[in-house]
């Protein structure tokens, strides 16, 4: 009996089949796109222009953002409608570094103060801008700013046992409050114009093709590492407790686990991943402004994850890329005025006809085709209905 037990209790691999496929596709894209950009002449049909490289890079950062949402929504049942706030904070931290790099090349030529501060007649740099001229400090802030906000917010929310739709509403309120705050000029983050006109990053010209390629490859690497991290977490004993909290939180408490601490750790990790995504996004799109905090943005992320398949990780990334590709495609044609209707319709259609999303539905289909031995295999089943 023992031997049988040992043979059957092999833990699931760190990367399942879909995980390996995902990482291979990601690696191929990360290599192929730069090659097609550099080594192929611009008049060739397979040439990838630099603007497309940045566009794809942007999709990859969105995929990482979607992954961060799936970690808490798919595996813990926390439907955060404020994930965009963590993304934006990471973006602002990177933007502040990029602003400080401009130096005397700004319109007003002030060696220390960014243009908008000179315009506002500020005489010296606000204290919270100190240190952002150093990249390591800015990189730390990319993690700490979203992480600390998530820690404080989550500590209060989870300790008070705010769950379900109430939690969703207060996360939405959080990002809306930040939107309003960052709109104000005297907050010191450039008001509604945000931060832009970046010149260089770590000494490299931010507009140069080479820099854009490196940023693209870094986004792919961050997405790959983020995926492996999330897989590692959800497979661990810790991750099993997370899924248990999603399915039966009371049971978890009566089993002796502090559910609020588990949620908090997952929430902070998720916020930091979103922050990294934001930090990679800003240099590729060249601007960060308060609209990134807008509640609609955070809701869009939920749509990406729902389309791809909640609780599958790979699906979240896939959904982000697909929906954003569709967005780029449709908002640049005659259908542009109808994009929001299409997005809304997509969400309704997925909820009604594909409740497990693309990847979740594929997993179900694969499960059905497998010879039936009365032992359902997927160690982490698709989650129940959204809270």
């Amino acid at each position: 009996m023992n031997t049988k037990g040992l043979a059957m209790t092999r833990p699931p691999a760190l990367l399942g089949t879909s995980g390996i496929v995902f990482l291979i596709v990601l690696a191929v894209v990360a290599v192929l796109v730069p090659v097609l950009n550099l080594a192929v002449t611009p008049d060739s049909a397979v040439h990838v222009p630099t603007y497309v490289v940045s566009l794809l890079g942007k999709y990859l950062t969105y995929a990482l953002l979607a992954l961060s949402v799936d970690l808490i929504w798919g595996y813990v049942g926390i439907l955060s409608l404020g994930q965009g706030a963590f993304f934006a904070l990471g973006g602002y931290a990177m933007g502040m570094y990029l602003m400080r790099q401009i130096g005397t090349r700004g319109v007003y030529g002030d060696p220390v103060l960014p243009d908008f501060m000179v315009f506002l007649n500020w005489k010296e740099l606000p204290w919270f801008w100190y240190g952002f001229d150093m990249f390591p400090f800015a990189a730390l802030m990319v993690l700490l700013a979203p992480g600390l906000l998530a820690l404080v917010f989550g500590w209060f929310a989870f300790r008070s046992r705010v769950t379900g739709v109430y939690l969703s509403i207060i996360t939405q309120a959080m990002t809306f409050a930040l939107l309003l705050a960052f709109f104000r000029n005297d907050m010191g983050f450039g008001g509604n114009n945000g931060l832009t006109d970046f010149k260089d990053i770590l000494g490299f010209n931010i507009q140069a093709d080479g820099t854009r390629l490196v940023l693209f490859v870094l986004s792919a690497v961050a997405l790959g590492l983020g995926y492996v991290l999330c897989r590692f977490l959800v497979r661990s004993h810790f991750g099993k407790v997370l899924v248990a909290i999603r399915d039966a939180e009371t049971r978890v408490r009566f089993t002796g686990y502090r559910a609020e601490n588990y949620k908090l750790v997952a929430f902070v990790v998720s916020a930091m991943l979103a922050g990294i995504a934001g930090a990679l996004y800003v240099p590729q799109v060249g601007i960060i402004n308060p609209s990134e905090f807008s509640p609609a943005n955070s809701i869009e992320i939920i749509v990406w994850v729902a389309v791809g398949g909640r609780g599958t990780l790979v699906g979240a990334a896939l959904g982000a890329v697909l929906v954003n590709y569709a967005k780029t495609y449709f908002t640049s044609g005659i259908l542009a005025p109808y994009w929001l209707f299409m997005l809304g319709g997509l969400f309704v259609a997925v909820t009604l006809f594909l409740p497990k999303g693309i990847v979740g539905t594929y997993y179900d289909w694969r499960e059905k085709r497998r010879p039936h031995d009365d032992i359902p295999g997927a160690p982490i089943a698709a989650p129940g209905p959204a809270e």
Partner: protein
Amino acid sequence: MTDTATLEPLAEAAPAAKKELTEALLYLDAVTVTFDGFRALNALSFTVDPGEMRAVIGPNGAGKTTMMDVITGKTRPDRGDVFFNGGTTDLTKLDETQIATLGIGRKFQKPTVFESHTVLDNLRLALKGQRRALPNIFRRESAAERERIDEIFETIRLTEHRDRLGGALSHGQKQWLEIGMLLAQDPKLLLVDEPVAGMTDAETAQTAELLRAINANGHSVVVVEHDMTFVRDLGVRVMCLHEGSVLAEGTLDQVSANERVIEVYLGR
């Protein structure tokens, strides 16, 4: 909640005194719980000795589930004392997680297992051990833990179902899995709410056997159940609750012969 102010001196004097007074594993004294004017528990008092198994019967609304809620920290009593471990620990000051860690396990009325985890993972999660979040990220299962889980599987007879999802089990199997999860927690006291609801006669008899085996292993058990055949199978001391307090206590025969019990419960 109604007149806590007048009761305060009593409550303060109580903890010190309890140490001398009880050797019981669980000690409830004059516990009252009121929901919107409805007295779910009305000065309920009883004790459970170490190693004892006790059955609790009573009509719907008698306060059986509220009693479990109070003991496990889900509901705070308006007044009264709830002590654990020979009067040393005041349960009214602790939350669910702390009480679970102290060694009180609870099986819910509706079987609650982790449906999207395998049966094996259900037991792994329940198994006594590290409960903190960060260390559990890097936790590995020890050989001793694996053996203990195999033992529990033998006890609850679900060995061949270990790789199925919790949600795919039959109702009776879920009840057993939940009892197995309690065993894995290795509590001093098991509170079991209606373990045989919806079970076949054969399953009911097996469950009685299972609970007796658990009790023989030194665990104290409190079973709430409506099924009289099952209670008879258990062959333990029976306590009948009515309107939030103890109506009668004794062997099943004594309790079922009690006129008031017949009146409020069995006679219906």
